[in-house]
């Protein structure tokens, strides 16, 4: 059963990664990042059960805390950028290049 959970976790992680790469809306990209974090959490929880050790759950808990902080700051940045550029597309912010 552990294998199934881990494969599901890997699938969700890969889907999230592809989402980050193909979407242009910064908010959606953020959602995909959250999806990847959740996939990781699933793996942590699964391993905690596999090994009979609560540390995995603890790490998942910390991941959630950090993810919450990250979302707050990230969304604030998006709002600020949107306010000046009237766009939430990550492709529009490409001034730093060759």
């Amino acid at each position, binding site marked *: 059963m552990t294998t199934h959970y881990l494969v599901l976790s890997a699938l969700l992680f890969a889907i999230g990664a592809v989402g980050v790469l193909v979407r242009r809306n910064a908010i959606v990209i953020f959602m995909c990042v959250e999806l990847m974090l959740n996939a990781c959490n699933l793996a942590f929880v699964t391993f905690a059960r596999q090994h009979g050790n609560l540390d995995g759950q603890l790490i998942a808990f910390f991941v959630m805390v950090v993810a919450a902080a990250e979302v707050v700051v990230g969304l604030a940045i998006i709002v600020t950028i949107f306010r000046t550029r009237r766009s939430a597309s990550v492709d529009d912010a490409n001034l730093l290049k*060759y």
Partner: protein
Amino acid sequence: MEPAKIVEHAGGVIGASWLMIALPLLGAAILLLGGRRTDRWGHLLGVAMSLASFVVAVVTFFELIGLPGGERRRAVGLFEFIPGLVDMGLLIDPLSISFALLITGVGSLIHIYSIGYMSHDPGRRRFFSYLNLFVAAMLLLVLSHNYVGLYIGWEGVGLASYLLIGFWQYKPSAATAAQKAFIVNRVGDFGLAIGIFTIWTTFGSVTFQGVFESTLKPEQGVLTAIGLLLLLGACGKSAQVPLQSWLLDAMEGPTPVSALIHAATMVTAGVYLVVRSGAVFFPEGSTAALFAAIVGTVTLLAGAIIGMAKDDIKKGLAGSTMSQIGYMMLGAAFGPVGYAFAIGHLITHGFFKANLFLGAGSVMHAMNDEVNMRRYGALRKALPVTFYTFLIGYLAIIGFPLLSGYFTKDGIIETVIHHNEVLGWLAVLGAGLTGFYMSRMVFMTFFGEKRWADDAHPHESPAVMTIPLVLLSIGSIFLGGYLVLGGRFMTFLGPAVGMPEGGVPAFHPFTVPGLATLALVAVGAAIAWLRYGRVPVPVTAPRGSFLTTFARRDLYGDALNESLFMRPGQWLTRIAVFFDNRGVDGLVNGLAAGIGGTSGRLRRVQTGFARSYALSILFGAAVVAGALLLVGNL
């Protein structure tokens, strides 16, 4: 008889002989460092310093002849030049004091003459500073008691010569001529430097005393090699074939310079070097002496042939100078008798050639700096003093009986024929050529009809210019006889260069070579009269035969140098430049361009799209995961 031993000397008048060099050097320093503030009286200071040096030389001379014959070689130590290796000092002996008297005496006269000649030139003060510098360097050259000091003086006169040839540096021809003189002299100076190095390694000393009185017996081959290297140096400085090409162009300088440096003094430095080193490196019958003799003969003929075709009065005189130095070099190859006549001819030549050059300068001064003799003619009425003094110089140089040149040149010819018939008769032929070209010069300049430019109003030069001419012509008349008759000069020089085994040879006025010389000179003068005195001289030069062209083009000396050295040098340079540009630079530039081009393309990867970067991160993560997997399975 061997030369006398060199004696250390301190104090007294001879001990103060360094003033001879120091005074003109001080004058040059004051005038060069003082700048425009010294413009008003700079020429007077220059003349004063030169005259003061002359006075010191005269006093030293009398002090020297006051000594007994065997003690007349005095070495005056001055200071330690290169600690432990070279001491600087002066050698006062009959040879060097003869030169010192000639340099300061004729030099002072030319200084005085220059006051008038350069009176309208804005750079007069600079001119006198260079002249003083030259006198100082030349005196160092002849007075130094070692080869290193000689070399310093040698380069010093080269520098002064360069500065004075290019004195009117705004004229491209003068600037080029100065560079040419400097570069050609480099070849000779290179030989001299190597020669001095070899002397050092052979004898362990560079002083004349250390070399001439050495107890070492080096191999004959080494001595010959040193002799040939010194001869190469002498050829450069004295404009002997094959390094003769610079002297004719050096006439671009002001005429007093031509008279002082390129006729009377500096160009005779080669003869001084050969005579000074003669006892060890150019003994009678040695290979080096034979080379010197051949070089002298070739040059005396080449100079005469060039002089025959030149229409430029100064270049004609320059050819003559080459020729007369050829005589000296020839004479210097034949032992003590030859030395005496060579140095005697050098001194009388210093007088009559300075006389002729200054006369030519006076003519140019009168004719608005015109140098083409075809534009002269009939000047004997307009410039009487110049004419008569020039006439005396002319008679002296062609060897008219009882004038200076007669005694000394005839002495050289007699000596040479005594040792080597072929070279001797060639020297006789050269005397005949001299008779032709000098007569041609006199006829074209002072006789015939007026061929002047429209704006020419010839007038006699001021006294400041004519008085030196008169003094020099007096020397041109009497000096030769005074020196040669009774073997006076030979006896005087004896302590310095040695005496002939059989004593001083008596002077025989009527010998076969002597009479043949006179006859040939007369024939040459007669031909000149027929060609240039009796018939009108065309204003534009006729085309002339192949030989005329040959002589006008300086015997193709420049063409030879160009094709032998300049063009291969240019090819070599171009090959080197090509190799540098394409090979070395190509490699470096190609590498840089390759890196630059690659970077330029790689730069395009930086699109600015965060998603592109994220894609590469994911790829990287996949690669790392794959690698971990592989490593774990292994």
